């Protein structure tokens, strides 16, 4: 199994390096902003409010740097596509490797990349916090602390849920470039983008508006529970996607 993971890591190395360079770029920019807010022009000419805003922006940039790292895992789907088109899929299915094991490699890769991006993301945020001298970035008032880390974790998890789903779609459609495949791939992103719009429309109606506000207020007090829930949901979703993918590979070629 580890040799197959090595293969995938080798194949994504260029993309991983580019993404890592982007991460370094974001972190550098974040550091420059915080240092400027402490010793440079921002501290010299900016008001308290501007300095605080610059530090918040620097922490947010570090959060973004962590989320940018997640995009490396999108390469897994490129690998699956190339494996189908280049014949590796057929080769590996013809070998002694169990289909469960072969499919698992791609999902394990996604989890490994998630752990790496979490570690680097957290390092980036902590560095921005240290340089700025801020202990937290408060996004929602009266809702605990560590909102920057929460944003990083929840944002990354949402992205990885999408990657697990896309991996499943890759196996279901054998990476064909049909319209159905494209629609299946964008469907979750479309749904997620529709929810805030529906919310916005509903909030215009007073009764719904106050109900949504109350719900958000309640949820925002339990942000860490939300993150935990997102993690559990990610694990379950990935496991279900894996099981369906294995079943699909096992049934390949069968007339349904």
């Amino acid at each position, binding site marked *: *199994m*580890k*040799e*197959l993971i*090595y*293969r995938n890591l*080798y*194949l994504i190395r260029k993309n991983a390096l580019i993404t890592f360079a982007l991460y370094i770029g974001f972190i550098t920019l974040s550091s420059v902003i915080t240092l400027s807010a402490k010793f440079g022009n921002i501290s010299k000419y900016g008001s308290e409010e501007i300095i605080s805003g610059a530090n918040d922006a620097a922490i947010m940039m570090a959060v973004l740097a962590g989320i940018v790292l997640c995009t490396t895992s999108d390469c897994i789907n490129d690998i699956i596509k*190339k*494996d189908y088109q*280049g*014949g*590796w899929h*057929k*080769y*590996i*299915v*013809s*070998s*002694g*490797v*169990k289909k469960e094991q072969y499919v698992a490699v791609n999902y394990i890769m996604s989890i490994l990349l998630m752990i790496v991006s979490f570690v680097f993301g957290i390092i980036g945020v902590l560095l921005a916090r240290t340089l700025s001298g801020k202990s937290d970035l408060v996004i929602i008032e009266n809702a605990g602390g560590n909102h920057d880390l929460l944003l990083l974790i929840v944002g990354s998890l949402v992205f990885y849920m999408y990657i697990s789903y896309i991996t499943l779609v890759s196996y279901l459609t054998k990476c064909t470039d049909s319209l159905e495949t494209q629609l299946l791939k964008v469907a979750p992103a479309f749904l997620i983008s529709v929810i805030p719009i529906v919310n916005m429309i509903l909030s215009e109606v007073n009764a719904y508006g106050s109900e949504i506000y109350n719900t958000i207020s309640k949820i925002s007090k339990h942000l860490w529970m939300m993150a935990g829930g997102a993690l559990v949901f990610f694990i379950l979703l990935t496991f279900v996607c894996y099981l369906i993918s294995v079943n699909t590979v096992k*049934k*390949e*070629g*069968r*007339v349904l």
Partner: protein
Amino acid sequence: MDYANAIEIRGLTKKYDGFTLDNISFDVPKGSIMGFIGQNGAGKTTTINSILNVIRWDRGEIKLLGCDMPQDETKAKEQISAIFDVLPFNEDMSAYHLNKVMRGIWKEWNPEIFAEYLDRFNLPVKKKFAKFSKGMKMKLQIAAGLSHNAKLLIMDEATTGLDPVVRNEILDIFLEYLQDESNSILMSSHITSDLEKIADRVTFIDNGRVLLTGIKDEIIDNHGMVKCSKKDFKDFLREDYISARVTDFGVEMLVDDRSNIAKKYSGAVIDKVSLEEIMLFYVNRNNTSNSF
């Protein structure tokens, strides 16, 4: 595990929209090389994909190296090498990296043997496969295929598109591989001359059905090409020949029982036939005009 046949196929059936692999049965005895011939779309790849369980078949039984498929699939596949017409390894990789990956795929992967084959085939270790020629890619596949103590090689159009020098080199390697009598090969190919050179047995498939299967020399010896004038052709009964080709110079007929035909039509000129001619005449056996 002891077994007499490396591959045993009984009644293999697989239905697609517009094509049926119909009740295929043949054996590849241990220690032999079986040529699997047929025109494009005849069902060769479908049969091979079924043998490898890349696709699920609808009916029939397949035994590989004495193991029932698909129940003992993993056990059987550890001792099989499949070689395809295109390189299945990512072209961004080199033989150096492939060696590392293969260790995880094949239990009996032997890096020393792989290195020996790379050296023998003059394949660079660090060069990316994208820069390899078609011949080099095929040699690489064969090097990988022979480096994990495989007892059965299954090749799907592996020599197609290669120049005669490389093909010849590859055929020599297969003959060397067969020096170990426990090794066997199933080789599908359009290039019947290659199979004529190395195959012990031949299975000829057309339109999803096995038309001929048996020892190659017997098949070639039993068949013959009758050459006669158009006038003499009229004396031949339809059931005595497979199909006929009418040219400006006369008629050529493929017969499947050369000695009997020689007795029945005394004076008829019967020449030896090649596998290619056998294939060509069988494919055209259903021409309504009885000639093509």
